[in-house]
């Protein structure tokens, strides 16, 4: 399989007419057993996750861990400060006044969750980056207004350049191009 070993090919990319056509194409590739293909649309297409066979993102679990860490951190910090490091009597209340800790714990939980969500999202998406191969496609500038693109990536185990081109043609795609890294 000499084509698979060509390091400089990113994948085969094609344009589709609209959301319905690209959805059908995605379902077709999913059913054919492709895993590494990407869809670029100007707006979110409902049901695309299912059509592409994408699993729910793992990010939610990281956010949960981030939130739990923030909560534990806030509680520990305040307990340590209030009961041993800087013992201050405030309006006659006990040193360990957990009621007063709630807002800070809450805020830190939100902060840690938000940071995990934003930075985790960036890391999992491989962002920020200067450049992506799909921009080499001649009509890709339409993707932000009215173009629907599908790219079968070369890293997919089933990838075969000619077979992909034939498949895309069969699905009624236009502007089929091989994009290089």
């Amino acid at each position, binding site marked *: 399989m000499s084509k698979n070993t060509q390091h400089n090919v990113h994948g085969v990319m094609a344009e589709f007419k609209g959301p319905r056509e690209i959805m059908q194409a995605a379902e077709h590739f999913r059913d054919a057993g492709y895993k590494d293909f990407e869809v670029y649309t100007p707006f979110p297409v*409902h049901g695309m996750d299912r059509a592409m066979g994408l699993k729910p993102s793992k990010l939610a679990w990281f956010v949960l861990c981030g939130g739990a860490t923030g909560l534990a951190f806030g509680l520990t910090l305040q307990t340590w400060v209030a009961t041993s490091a800087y013992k201050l009597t405030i*309006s006659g209340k006990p040193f360990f006044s957990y*009621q*007063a800790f*709630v807002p800070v714990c809450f805020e830190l939980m939100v902060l840690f969750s938000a940071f995990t969500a934003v930075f985790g999202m960036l890391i999992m998406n491989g962002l920020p980056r200067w450049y992506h191969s799909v921009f080499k496609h001649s009509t890709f500038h339409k993707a932000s207004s009215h173009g629907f693109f599908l790219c079968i990536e070369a890293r997919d185990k089933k990838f075969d350049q000619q077979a992909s081109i034939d498949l895309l043609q069969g699905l009624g795609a236009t502007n089929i191009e091989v994009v290089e890294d």
Partner: protein
Amino acid sequence: MKVTNTRLTGFLATTFPKIAFGIGILGAAFLAFFFKQDPHHFYFAYLTVFMIFLTLTLGSLFFVLIQHLVRAGWSIGFKRIAETLMSNSGLMALLFIPIIFGIPHLYHWSNAAEVAKDPLLNSKHAFLNIPFFKVRALFYFGIWITLSRVFYKKSTEQDSSGDPENTVKMQKYSTFGILLFALSITFACIDWVMSLTPHWYSTMIGVYFFAGSVVVALSTISCIAQILRSQGYLKEVLTVEHFHEIGKLLYGFNVFWAYIAFSQYFLIWYANIPEEIAFYLEHFKGTWNTVAIFLVLGHFVGPFILFMSRHAKRNLPFHFAITLWFIFMQMVDMYWFVMPNFNINGFHIGGVELAALSCIGGLYLGTFFTRLSKQALYPIQDPRISESIHLENL
């Protein structure tokens, strides 16, 4: 679209309302017996149960208003259930009559001798007096009954006429409707619950009751929708996507409830002013403290963790269990708010509470299912029905 059966028939339409009315009348008979034994206890138990069902009715009214206000499409399948629930505001007005007779038992401020020797009550007398209290109650029920009648009528009219103009009108009315609703629910809670402890004041109480009422209303709407679905109704308009949506709203409002409950407690705890803190001292006394902790864990912490996931909201049997749990927690909440004024040393569930629950609950559900069977189970000609059917969560 394949319409299966838009009318409620069979057991839920004919036999069930009769059973419910029967239980209601039986409960009323028991209540009369308990009233003879201890009228004081009777009035507090009655007020507790009255508040449970009032918050449910008002929460449903809010649901209908807000859906029109934001021109929501997803909720069409739930709308008739909410509209029927809010139409019980007339029944709630009738059920309010015993409370009028109970004013001397329930409300400390109605006693002229007490007011005379208490400067704080004396200064509040301009607001807290029996004639003005009655006028205000009339005013609140006037608002709720008018709003629910107008919206119910416009919506059911549309079932046969299919006139989209009705939707436009309802959207217009919902604007000032929501303002009237917000003011009336706030003042009603101040009058009927906060004035049980007339020295106490809290700027949060209106929002607290509002948040609780939306939680119980969303739970009940979702719960009834699932019961109807299990009988084969509403299948074409309500899918797992719609339950996911109402679950999100329910989850959000429950967090909002907790936020308001904590804010109220936190500010009072922090300032520690005698008039304010007295409320919490009374409500944390003896086993009432256990009820308060149960409320924190059961109303907030448990559902917060268990109902967070998308999978939990989309798992319909689990979703159903959670809605039942929320309805139960609203009962606990109202019980904790009202009853420490009577059972000072700790909670105690007696026959009178159960009799009040079966009386008001029976009449409420009987009226609800009778009214529900008279119209289609969802607004069949709503202009947004197709939008609603194609709902999908991203």
